[in-house]
């Protein structure tokens, strides 16, 4: 019995040592250039640099927890992490379940299609979107006359665009630039029409997600975002990834 108690005490100490960080942060690792996983298993990217900068600003120690996108909100709700920094857009739908800091960036959404395509000619055409994203809601609300085709992942949409099953794609501009247009299969395709950032659909940019009721943590992140904007830390990180200010208007 005594041995068992000692063993339990040791185990408890080890667990608390592993969780010694003040804040555990869920990150994704499959959304370049915001977060991607190195061959060594290390997660790198814009989101990661921002997360580290925010923690340093707040004077807290942070542990990054790599989590799949599908499970990232459940992980937050179950307490596996205390915050999400994973390019998650602040939307009314998500606000029903979790809470957000102010935005830390806001990249516009846009259309891509075969070169020469026009936004005015979209009616009746097929546009591929990732199921359940802000782009899905946006297209339903703003372009009711296009035929929407729903996909599970962005990569499948690129395949079908090249195959000619969809005429255009609506998604995040930066993700499409890096994930498709800059690749070999992106030849012959280009952005067309306006770039969109409608708060009603696209939310207010990407923010740090926290559990509802944790106002203190949320406000600490919001304050830290403002602070790194002012200190110039943000623009240094920004410059490593983008040649424009991704913070948005």
């Amino acid at each position: 019995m005594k041995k068992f108690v000692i063993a339990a005490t040791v185990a408890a100490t080890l667990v608390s040592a592993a969780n010694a960080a003040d804040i555990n942060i869920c990150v994704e690792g499959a959304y370049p250039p915001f977060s991607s996983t190195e061959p060594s298993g290390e997660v790198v990217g814009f989101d990661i640099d921002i997360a580290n900068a925010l923690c340093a600003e707040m004077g807290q120690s942070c542990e990054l927890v790599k989590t799949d996108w599908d499970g990232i909100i459940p992980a937050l709700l179950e307490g596996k992490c205390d915050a999400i920094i994973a390019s998650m857009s602040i939307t009314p739908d998500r606000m029903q379940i979790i809470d957000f800091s102010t935005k830390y960036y806001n990249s516009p959404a846009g259309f891509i299609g075969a070169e020469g395509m026009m936004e005015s000619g979209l009616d009746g055409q097929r546009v591929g979107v990732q199921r359940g994203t802000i782009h899905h809601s946006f297209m339903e609300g703003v372009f009711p006359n296009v035929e929407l085709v729903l996909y599970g992942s962005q990569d499948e949409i690129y395949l079908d665009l090249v195959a000619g099953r969809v005429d255009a794609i609506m998604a995040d501009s930066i993700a499409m630039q890096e994930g498709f247009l800059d690749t070999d299969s992106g030849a012959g395709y280009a952005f067309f029409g306006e770039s969109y950032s409608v708060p009603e659909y696209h939310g207010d940019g990407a923010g740090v997600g926290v559990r509802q009721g944790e106002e203190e943590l949320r406000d600490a992140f919001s304050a830290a975002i403002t602070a790194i904007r002012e200190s110039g830390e943000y623009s240094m990180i920004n410059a490593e990834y983008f040649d424009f200010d991704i913070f948005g208007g």
Partner: protein
Amino acid sequence: MRFDLVADNWVMFAEGAWMTVQLTALSLLIGFCIALPAGLIRARRIRILSPLINIYVYAFRGTPLLVQLFLVYYGLSQFEAVRDSFAWPVLREAYWCALITFSLNSGAYATEIIRGAIETVPKGELEAAKSLGLSPRKVDFLVLIPSALRRALPQYGNEVVFMLHGSVVASVITIQDILGAGRTLNARYYIAYEGFLTAAALYMSITFVLVFAFRMLERRYLRHLRVSH
């Protein structure tokens, strides 16, 4: 539990249910039209045709439905020759790709069911028909096929339920069926349990209706085989 979000999106689930029902029903109908002659040819062991049908049945029963669907949807579209061909307007559509694949798949399974049923029709029934002076064609259409189809009912009922459940793979090629609605709910609000539970309940309801319908059919058409006390 956020079943209010399911309620907010009930139209999506209703449309999904309709898509599942009609895709399954059409696939079964076309599959049956393939299986009836194919099963007869197999049971009669008609030369050349019977081995060809055997290859078809083996191919479709030997591979998973999802792999078949990927081959038709993503596989064929990879070839420029296919994309330039007359068939592209059909193969371009996810819906037609699913319908073609499901019909061929269901047809393969039903072929074997019908072949088995034809082979187990008691010789006595056919001899009795012959002794009444029916021509061989009349024996086939008035005795053999109706009797075989009755016997095939329980097994075919299983095939119908399998097809319904197999149709979930349509959601991976962009078709918004019942599972597609569940996945949309999951992706939009990050709630898995509510959306998938609703999907499960819908599939179960449709299955109950089908099982009940087949039980009624069996009660009517297999009455003569029931043991009465």
